[in-house]
């Protein structure tokens, strides 16, 4: 999904993740209307079915790589150290399990965030400008890794970015501006959507 800065990309992801409750309309995930659930219900869905990769990674600095991944599991089905190790190995950090985020490069930190997002075997991975803080080479590598790991784990990927270079690598790209228009004038874009 593309969108210019300030167009509401993060808000849109937060609505899907159940962090925010929509004023109107519905958000459905895996056939369930999560927007109708209470806060605790939305928290539960987020913990079990959604993985979230933030632009700033949002790793907890006081925890090691593996602890960050385990923490992602602890609110869902429960911590599984073997799976956490396997995931970190898959993203190339098998030798950095006990490193703290500050001991890693930016690209490595993002890989921890990817592993954490996949920790609970989610149905959907949300990625908010995941390459925004990376150089072009790392960004390309990272994007490839996110797509591959989502595919391997059977998770749908919804990625938002304003970067054309990133968006061009996807077949199915929607513009947030269209969605905003559809929300404002439902009739005007009925045929188009």
């Amino acid at each position: 999904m593309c969108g210019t800065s300030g167009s509401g990309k993060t808000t849109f992801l937060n609505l899907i993740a159940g962090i925010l409750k929509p004023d109107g309309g519905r958000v459905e995930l895996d056939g369930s209307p999560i927007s109708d659930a209470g806060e605790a219900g939305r928290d539960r869905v987020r913990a079990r079915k959604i993985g979230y990769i933030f632009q700033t990674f949002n790793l907890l600095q006081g925890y090691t790589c593996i602890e960050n991944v385990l923490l992602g599991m602890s609110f869902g089905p429960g911590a599984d150290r073997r799976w956490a190790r396997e995931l970190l190995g898959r993203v190339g950090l098998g030798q950095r399990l006990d490193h703290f985020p500050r001991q890693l490069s930016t690209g490595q930190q993002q890989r921890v965030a990817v592993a954490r997002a996949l920790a609970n075997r989610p149905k959907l991975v949300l990625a908010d400008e995941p390459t925004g803080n990376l150089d072009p080479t790392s960004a390309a590598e990272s994007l490839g890794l996110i797509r591959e790991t989502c595919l391997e784990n059977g998770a749908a990927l919804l990625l938002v970015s304003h970067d054309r270079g990133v968006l061009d690598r996807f077949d199915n790209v929607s513009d947030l501006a269209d969605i905003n228009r559809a929300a404002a004038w439902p009739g005007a874009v009925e045929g188009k959507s």
Partner: protein
Amino acid sequence: MLSTVITAFSIALASGLLMSVWVVKDQARANFTGVDSGFDGVFGARGSKLQLVLNSIFHLEESPGNLAWVEYERIAADRRVATAVPIAVGDNYYGYRLVGVTTNLFDVEYREGKKYTVRSGYLFNPSKKQAVVGSFAAERLKLRVGDTFHPYHGLIFEKNKQHAETYVVSGVMEQSNTPADRVIWIPIAGLQNMAGHSAETASDVSAVLVKLRGTSSGMMMNQEFNFQGDVMTFAWPIADTMSKLFNKIAPVEMVLRAVAFLVALVAAGSILASIYNSMNERRREIAILRALGARRSTIFAIVVLEASGIAALGAVAGFLVYYVIMSVAAWLIRQETGIVLNPLEFQPVMVWAPLAMLSLGALAGLVPAAKAYRTDVAENLTPIS
């Protein structure tokens, strides 16, 4: 980290203080009211019963006055009296009291089945200048059997008041954990006739310790000597006299307890303040946890647990603080009174004080937990610049 350590230390201090105040109070009361050295009562000059008991049983305070030897003989001959032991005080050796006594003191059981015995050497010969030194006094003064010393006049050590008489240590007593451990026992005639003591009062005694032939004897003698007579004071029963002392100092105990409670409250306040202040810095961390699926109630519980954890750490360290305070207090009390407190003896306060600190810590965690509970996730997910 530093604030956590300081907070845990303040909890440890509070917990340790609470336990110490309670244990010192309870053990001191139990020991002081339980020590009667095997006697039922004490006769002495007309005056304060408390002063009489402190002087003759605990070897503290000055003597309220003397009794003539004839009074002692009258008491000893009384059919209601099973044993009468006269004592005379008035001299010291480097601050440790010399108490003149007759050898029948050593026939009395100071505790059931326990008599004062010598660990090394032998009891003094009543007609010689010999001394039996209490275990604590011997340890502090480094006196051993065969050593000689010159007593000093008065109950307080003054270098220029040395007596000319030379005493030989004939024996060192077995530790009894009673005030007798701090005393240097010598023949009563020796103390009465020490050079420099008044010749007129040479046969006087400071007090007469008595063992009675029954409770009714005590009641009769109490009536006879305290209410009808005006020559002697009869302190009976000894435990009652000491209880009155503790009742008098009860307000001091209350102040100490209040101080300990205040320290506990301040410690709880410091938990609240340190965690509450850290909440601002931890808004993003909380938001991340919420974004990962943590419920508000989980975050609330984490903060309360954190506060309880700090309190638990403090409560555990409180035992160390308690042990240090108690060791110093026990040493001081033993030094001053000969009473031995046991810091390791179990008291209920050792359970309820740490539990109270834990509860107080958890309660103090409720306020920052409520703040964490209200943290807005979407607003705080981005880095705080």
